[in-house]
């Protein structure tokens, strides 16, 4: 699968100042029946965006101009908690959302973001709250990944942390599997020989019916 490289991103940000937005809210389970990875944008936050009879809820931020197509989300703590479904990230991507800023993230969701070219930025709650206030006023944010800086008019630039390998993968749009196989093919084979000596019963499944 191709991953779009992430260098810098400028755009308005939709503010979702709510804690514990779980993956069921981001991508309701009933849509997991869809086996595609692309084109899931319309299901993002589906039950927040639509009433049971399919009407748009005008009060929800992603249904309001100018945030309908915002490429950035500013969210509350523990964003993306709950299930491991990667559709939660794909649905955000399907709406063109490339960056989520929050005080903390659900662990699996956080890891899934990097694998799909989405940048999750963790900042102290007070900074997120200030960004949210500016976002709600329609401010434009610039996320500079190489410089690890978020710039927005109205406050001093904020720096953020990111693991060097994740940063490099995002900037280059690297597919994790390819990177891993290239760098560690030999290590894996060496390990398997050692592992087989310790737990041989784990290598006898080929003989099973």
């Amino acid at each position, binding site marked *: 699968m191709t991953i779009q490289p992430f260098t810098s991103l400028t755009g308005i940000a939709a503010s979702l100042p709510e804690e514990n937005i779980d993956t069921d809210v981001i991508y309701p389970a009933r849509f*997991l029946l869809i086996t595609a990875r692309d084109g899931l944008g319309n299901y993002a936050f589906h039950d927040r965006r639509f009433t049971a009879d399919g009407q748009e809820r005008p009060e929800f931020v992603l249904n309001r101009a100018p945030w309908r197509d915002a490429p950035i989300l500013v969210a509350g703590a523990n964003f993306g908690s709950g299930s491991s479904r*990667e559709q939660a990230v794909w649905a955000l991507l399907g709406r063109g959302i490339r960056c989520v800023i929050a005080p903390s993230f659900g662990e699996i969701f956080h890891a899934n973001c990097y694998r*799909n070219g989405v940048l999750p930025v963790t900042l102290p709650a007070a900074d997120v709250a200030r960004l949210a206030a500016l976002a709600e006023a329609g401010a434009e944010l610039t996320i500079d990944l190489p410089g690890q800086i978020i710039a927005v008019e109205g406050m001093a630039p904020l720096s953020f942390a990111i693991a060097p*390998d994740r940063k490099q993968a995002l900037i280059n749009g690297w597919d*994790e*599997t390819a990177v*891993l196989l290239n760098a560690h093919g030999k290590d894996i084979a060496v*390990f398997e020989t050692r592992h087989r000596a310790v737990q041989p019963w784990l290598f006898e499944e080929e003989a099973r019916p």
Partner: protein
Amino acid sequence: MTAPQTLYDKLWHSHAVAELPTGETLLYIDRHLVHEVSSPQAFASLRAAGRRLRRPRTHLAVADHAVPTRQRGGDIADPLARAQVAELEENAAAFDVPYRALTGDGQGIVHVIGPESGFTLPGITLVCGDSHTTTHGAFGALAFGIGASECGTVMAAQCLKQRKARTMRVELVGTLPAHVTAKDVALAFIAKVGALGAQGHAVEYAGPAVEAMSMAARMTLCNMTIEAGGRIGLVAPDDTTFAYLRGRPMAPRGSRWDQAVAYWRTLRTDVGAGYDKQVTLDLAGIAPHVSWGTSPDEALPITATIPDPAAIADDSARRHAEKALAYMDLKPGTPLEQVAIQRVFIGSCTNGRIEDLRAAAEVVRGRTVAAGVQAIVVPGSTQTRQQAEAEGLDSIFTAAGFEWRHAGCSMCVAMNDDRLAPGERCASTSNRNFEGRQGPGGRTHLMSPAMAAAAGIAGHLIDVRKLLS
């Protein structure tokens, strides 16, 4: 002489392929459970890159999430679910992955059939594109949920990059009172530490009360670890574990069995090994628990009343509670036992095992489901269903007015046609009470199988001990 190690350390170090400059470890993955929801995109990525599976027979595929439970055989009515199951079957055949047919005896929820088959073993790493993979830690396996892209990586490379977690020891002491179960312990633990209390930690459950638990109880406990934010739950393997596994179809046999048990006995936390966090829970004082809100940590003993958010000091918890009570349509001060329910769901990877069905049947025997309540029992696997039928449990349930279904995830995840209507309230043995989890607008109260059965009989939440005393 090496420094004392925790069980988690031992499992981690025995699977470390390479240390990466980033501080992560390349971790070898022994086993992968594959289901219809998180695998299509992984198989697609393999196809797109022209990759094959490194060790196809270390994977095991089964359809569980989307499958209907009213009948088996014939076409699945929902065209999307039908296509998804068909895609899994085709992918398994194309990539030589062992597949458990929907109509076969080996079908069931991934986290039920893994242990049941002896696919899950102590000392291994096991992954699945499902967060409740924590379940398998009950065997002393390093088991965790992953995303669909990672499933593709495991298929191609048999490895994953992982960062080592911190460790948390949860010491369970005291004896569980009658009719109080591992589910109640899990809900009490999560309520105590919070939905993020174990985040970033590998949780090891230990102590005399854990040693006394059955494998089913240990699986329930480990299963719910993710609801406290922990991706890994662990119990050291012991004679209870070995007795459970011996003779299972995919467990080692003969001299290999003895060799394996000797190795498995080394998988215990060394004396003197340190943990980053320690929690002690005295089981003697635990009453049956039910959740009242929309996060698994919003749970209380059944004897309590609905809490008043105004009395909650923490801002974030108070706001969540206010929103939860509005969604759940509950008023502060109402005794939990007065909360009326319309639906009962007994099943899931948390509580869909034979021991769970027996506990529910004990409550149901000779009683009738309350008027206006629809109650279903969905065994966790086809084998569990057959075992229950051999024991006559199905007749107990159906005589009382419960529907007896086929195996699958069913109303835990509401991806098939088993779901709540908006506003309906359910006594559920599943693991998540998030908004809309059991259907848009549906209201979930988490509890043990015995408690859910009792609620079905009474028509409202009730302390099961009142029915069984």
